[in-house]
């Protein structure tokens, strides 16, 4: 268990980036990986624009937009949680993280329904190149989201005792940065898969 010795005013100029500085390396590496995903999607799309456009029509932009709203709302609650933690309002931290979890959970449930509908319609990863990318990109993103949900749940559990601990705040900020990355990646994924014509 982390020692509580670090309570108190934080040392001046000790922190510039929110969260653990290493988490930014992870975010940079992950964003780079998704950058490669996006570029190879566009590259494959150029080879067969007609097929990609035709396949895309099976996707519902409305569901995608709803997903986007869930994630944006989730990010907002996580931001509120971080600022509540800075003011040591433990109940507010717990509540905001719970609402963030509900938003992320709503995204996960709607994605599962979306996958279910695709499988029911006989569409899968082997249908064509468009669906290969659709399932890989949304699948990898879904994995990120699930990890994010676990992280938020752990932080929520720790919030009751941890608020006021400098170390908790740093983990909360790291978790929040990660959650925003999941959000950001979806914001690029959504137009790329659902809207680009």
């Amino acid at each position, binding site marked *: 268990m*982390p*020692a509580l010795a670090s309570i108190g005013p934080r040392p001046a100029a000790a922190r510039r980036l929110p969260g*653990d*500085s*290493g*988490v930014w*390396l*992870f975010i940079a*590496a*992950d964003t780079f*990986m998704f950058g*490669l*995903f996006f570029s*190879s999607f566009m590259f*494959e799309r150029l080879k067969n624009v007609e097929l990609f456009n035709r396949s895309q029509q099976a996707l519902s932009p409305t569901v995608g937009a709803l997903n986007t709203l869930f994630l944006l709302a989730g990010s907002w609650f996580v931001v509120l949680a971080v600022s509540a933690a800075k003011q040591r309002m433990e109940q507010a931290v717990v509540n905001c993280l719970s609402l963030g979890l509900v938003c992320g959970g709503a995204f996960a449930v709607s994605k599962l329904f979306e996958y279910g509908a695709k499988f029911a319609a006989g569409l899968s*990863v*082997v249908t064509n*190149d468009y669906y*290969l990318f659709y*399932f*890989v990109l949304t699948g*990898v993103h879904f*994995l990120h989201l699930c990890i994010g949900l676990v992280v938020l749940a752990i932080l929520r559990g720790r919030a009751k005792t941890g608020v006021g601990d400098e170390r908790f705040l740093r983990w909360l900020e790291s978790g929040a940065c990660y959650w925003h990355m999941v959000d950001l990646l979806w914001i690029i994924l959504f137009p790329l898969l659902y809207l680009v014509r």
Partner: protein
Amino acid sequence: MVRDTFRYWRLCAWAGPLFLVTFVIFWGILGRNIPPLSPASTEAEVARHFIENANRFRLGFGAAMTFAVLYFVWTVAIFVVMQRMEGDNHVLSYLNLTGGLATVCFVTISCSFWLTASFRPEREPAIQQLLYDLGWLTIDMCYCCTTVQMIAMSVLFLTDQREEPLFPKWLGWYTIWVAFIFFVLLILPFVKTGPFAWNGMFNFWVAFFAWFIWIQAQSMFVFKAITRLEREAAAAEPGAQRSMKPSLATTR
């Protein structure tokens, strides 16, 4: 006493860079696995691949199987450092140890498939293709052993309570990242061309080279960690009783 202990640790840590060099030479260059044949290759193409390179492959894969053991030796160096860091709870260091051992097993087994194919290269082409497929599917799809090893390590590095952590935080985060990009391999059995195939950008170039870079980075910091632990143990030595159990004296 103390010096001897750490000398062995350091020797084991050298196995990491040595593994990397020998693996690239024997498995990659002599074994012609950087880059591999496309999974879309025909039976005849795979058969010719083994007929034309039979002796080269016999040396390459035989030596690769021998030197793959270095990865296990290296894992033990990390294991002992992790044990010091963990104090009484050894679960993460054991996950690292078993993950590293399993990684060696599957790397070795996949090499044995390619070695079998080059042992009798005149064999029926369909069987040669089967062996080639077995090799690649084994080495790629057993990725999760390495993932377990990496996640155990990064959890320990990121929760290190020392004032100045024994391993840099960025290394922990990089390790987690590599551990997770391996999950893209799940798509590999479905495709024979493109970026997700076993010779494609993600499932070959990114996955293998991220792992290679990790081995090198991890090795560099294992040496640094051993030096620090050695210094701490030496500082604790004059008080004879404390040096008996340096793990308790130095972990907090």
